[in-house]
């Protein structure tokens, strides 16, 4: 018999098993973020030319661990928590096969530890991409495979939960938009993990001597179907989190269910093609293939992101205007709860992802422009805007929401929490912008010494590049401080926060079930459809519902167009190549 409890503050229903899994996955994610953050500080302090902290071998080892821990472990553990939330909690459904979900979780933990141990033993400093024929320890690949299998189990548990919810009629009508977005993330995750298996299993067999040769070009093609698509899981999931937070904080409803869902469908069809971005300057791949794929089939997935970029803030604006904040174009935004880290984190995530991550990603993913950007430090600049400001910040904002609701703890240090999104957002924006700027001057990524000290051939990047890398270093330190603030508030709240329910003790913060008395065996009432509001009918569809958002969207577009053509201009100045 499935046991549920209802959150008295939000009315959300938590299935006991799902609740514990969410907690365990979120906490595992936070531990990975802690490790990734410490490693990030070491990377930052080494690439900051004036500090140059670590020796070369330690730097490459730490950089490998940082990439894997942040880009794979932290985001995917947290994504599992989000999937269980979107499938079970939002649909008021019991979780399908919780034991399988725990088995998946255990595999992910074992895999993560195995890979990290392999890296820190020192003979697997192969970077996250582990391009063959460079060889890591077999346990490096095996750990990643186990982690991926665990995540795959989680995806199927999620899909099973959708089936359970449908069969048991736990909701009326169609699934909520947030669950729809979670499902898109899940589908992309399955594609991603299958690609990962397709390349990492042979590579593992090669590392133990069962296969003699892995083609290096094929490895790159298939590995990126894992490497880039995993970032597309993040995009789908964090867009769902944006919609969720807009709904929770403002009572916002999607401007149009049809438009938002259609945009998500475009993600399913086209987003994964983007892994071609990484292969634009590779030999042996034709331009036709590169152009079609790098453009996600004529940029239809970019179109989808631009749609969400309008409809998420647009939904907030419509809700705010309905509350009477109708003065001028931006009263709705000025009077938003900027002191609430759930909102400020979400909004910084939205703006940072769009302006810094989105624009730079499309520009560098243009077939020819890749020539002036490929493998420069521009690339880490870009993906710190997407994955850190976009995804990580969205996860952080969601955590602030979940601590009272899911963990039943009052947040400690509210002032620290209030400032955290700003500190983290500022630091990571500096990292993103100044890495991109240094990359434009040619500074290489994954490189221990941009000064080439003692090299008889000698080479100096322009002096400006050192300045830019120094500013990025300062930004990185600020970002790490912001990350530490997040962990202090969240982990501190789990341990020291005042329990909002007497059963919510220390162990219960880390995945141990609440006492049975907290739950009832009663099935939650069926989740009703959103109340029909007058808005759809009174609206004559000819006026703009969210004019302020439209102005913001046009600012984005103009920045996009200008920056895009600036890069073509840069490209036109390099040696003619054909």
């Amino acid at each position, binding site marked *: 018999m499935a046991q549920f409890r209802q959150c008295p503050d939000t009315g959300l229903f938590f299935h006991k098993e799902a609740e514990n899994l969410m907690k365990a996955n979120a906490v595992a994610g936070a531990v990975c973020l802690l490790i990734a953050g410490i490693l990030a500080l070491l990377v930052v302090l080494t690439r900051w030319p004036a500090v140059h902290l670590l020796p070369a071998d330690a730097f490459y080892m730490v950089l490998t661990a940082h990439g894997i821990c942040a880009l794979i472990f932290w985001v995917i553990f947290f994504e599992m928590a989000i999937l269980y939330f979107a499938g079970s909690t939002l649909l008021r459904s019991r979780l399908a096969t919780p034991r399988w979900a725990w088995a998946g979780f255990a595999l992910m933990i074992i895999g993560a530890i195995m890979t990290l141990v392999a890296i820190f033993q020192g003979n697997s400093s192969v970077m996250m991409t582990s391009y063959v024929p460079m060889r890591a320890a077999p346990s490096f690949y095996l750990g990643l495979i186990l982690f991926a299998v665990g995540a795959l189990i989680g995806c199927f548990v999620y899909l099973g939960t959708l089936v359970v919810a449908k069969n048991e009629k736990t909701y009326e009508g169609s699934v909520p938009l947030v669950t729809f977005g979670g499902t898109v993330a899940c589908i992309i995750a399955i594609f991603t993990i299958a690609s990962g298996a397709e390349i990492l299993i042979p590579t593992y067999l090669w590392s133990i001597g069962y296969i003699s040769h892995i083609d290096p070009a094929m490895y790159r093609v298939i590995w990126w179907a894992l490497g880039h698509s995993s970032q597309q899981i993040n995009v789908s999931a964090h867009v769902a989190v944006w919609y969720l937070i807009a709904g929770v904080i403002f009572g916002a409803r999607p401007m149009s269910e049809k438009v938002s869902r259609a945009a998500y469908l475009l993600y399913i069809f086209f987003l994964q093609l983007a892994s071609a971005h990484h292969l634009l300057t590779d030999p042996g791949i034709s331009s036709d293939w590169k152009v079609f794929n790098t453009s996600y089939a004529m*940029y239809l997935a970019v179109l989808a992101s631009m749609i969400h970029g309008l*409809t998420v803030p647009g939904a907030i604006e419509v809700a705010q205007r309905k509350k009477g904040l109708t003065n001028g174009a931006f009263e709705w935004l000025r009077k938003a709860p900027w002191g609430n880290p759930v909102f400020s984190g979400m909004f910084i995530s939205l703006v940072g992802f769009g302006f810094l991550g989105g624009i730079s990603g499309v520009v560098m993913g*243009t077939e020819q422009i890749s020539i002036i950007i490929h493998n420069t430090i521009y690339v880490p600049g870009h993906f710190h805007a997407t994955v850190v400001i976009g995804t990580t910040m969205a996860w952080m904002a969601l955590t602030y929401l979940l601590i009272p609701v899911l963990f039943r703890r009052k947040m400690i240090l509210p002032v620290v929490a209030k400032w955290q999104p700003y500190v983290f957002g500022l630091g990571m924006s500096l990292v993103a912008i100044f890495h991109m700027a240094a990359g434009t001057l040619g500074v290489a990524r994954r490189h221990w010494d941009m000064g080439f000290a003692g090299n008889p051939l000698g080479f100096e990047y322009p002096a400006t590049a050192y300045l830019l890398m120094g500013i990025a270093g300062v930004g990185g330190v600020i970002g790490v401080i912001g990350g530490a603030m997040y962990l202090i508030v969240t982990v501190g709240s789990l341990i020291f926060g005042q329990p909002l329910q007497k059963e919510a003790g220390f162990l219960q913060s880390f995945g141990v079930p609440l006492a049975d008395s907290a739950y009832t065996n009663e099935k939650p009432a069926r*989740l009703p459809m959103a109340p029909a*509001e007058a808005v759809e009918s009174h609206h004559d569809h000819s006026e703009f519902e969210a004019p302020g958002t439209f102005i913001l969207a046009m600012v984005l577009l103009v920045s996009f167009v200008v920056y*895009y053509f600036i890069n073509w201009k840069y490209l036109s100045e390099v040696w*003619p190549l054909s």
Partner: protein
Amino acid sequence: MTSFMPPAQKNWWAVPVGRQEIVWIGIALVWCLIMFFMMPYWHMYGKQNISNEGYRVTPVKFQAKVNEMIEKYKVREVGAMKIPVVAPPEGSDVYLMARLWQWYPMLELKKDASYRLHITSIDWNHGFSLQPVNINLQVVPGYEMVLNVTPDKAGEYTIVCNEYCGIMHHTMLGKIWVKE
């Protein structure tokens, strides 16, 4: 109310879309198409494109080509390692080999002359990053890229390796001199 409840209408797909979204989708779609057609446009009218010419190659074969070229066109040697500098004639095939942790050989080219530059790696992945002009290419072992290059400014250029290739990656440099 909201994004985390089932849509208010059973037939939500039939609810008409507001004008604002339609206008934005139209604008965004036009921009997407412009960006798409910029790439084929640049193939036709732009001067900087990655070549589609590529071959599978073995280290032995490529090294033979490199040595042949050095024999014919070597003009001097550089440094304690005595890395040869070759000055191949205009329009000729130029072979550049990446290996741990060296670009081999070094090149002396003429300004505004075109060359067929063949690049591969004989061991791991490397990154050809020509500075300060900032041309970046992936160098994949087993595959040879053939690229027509026309250096249009004289000066000393450095090839940095920008694909991580092991512990001495950051020491891997090469040189190209472009003479008037």
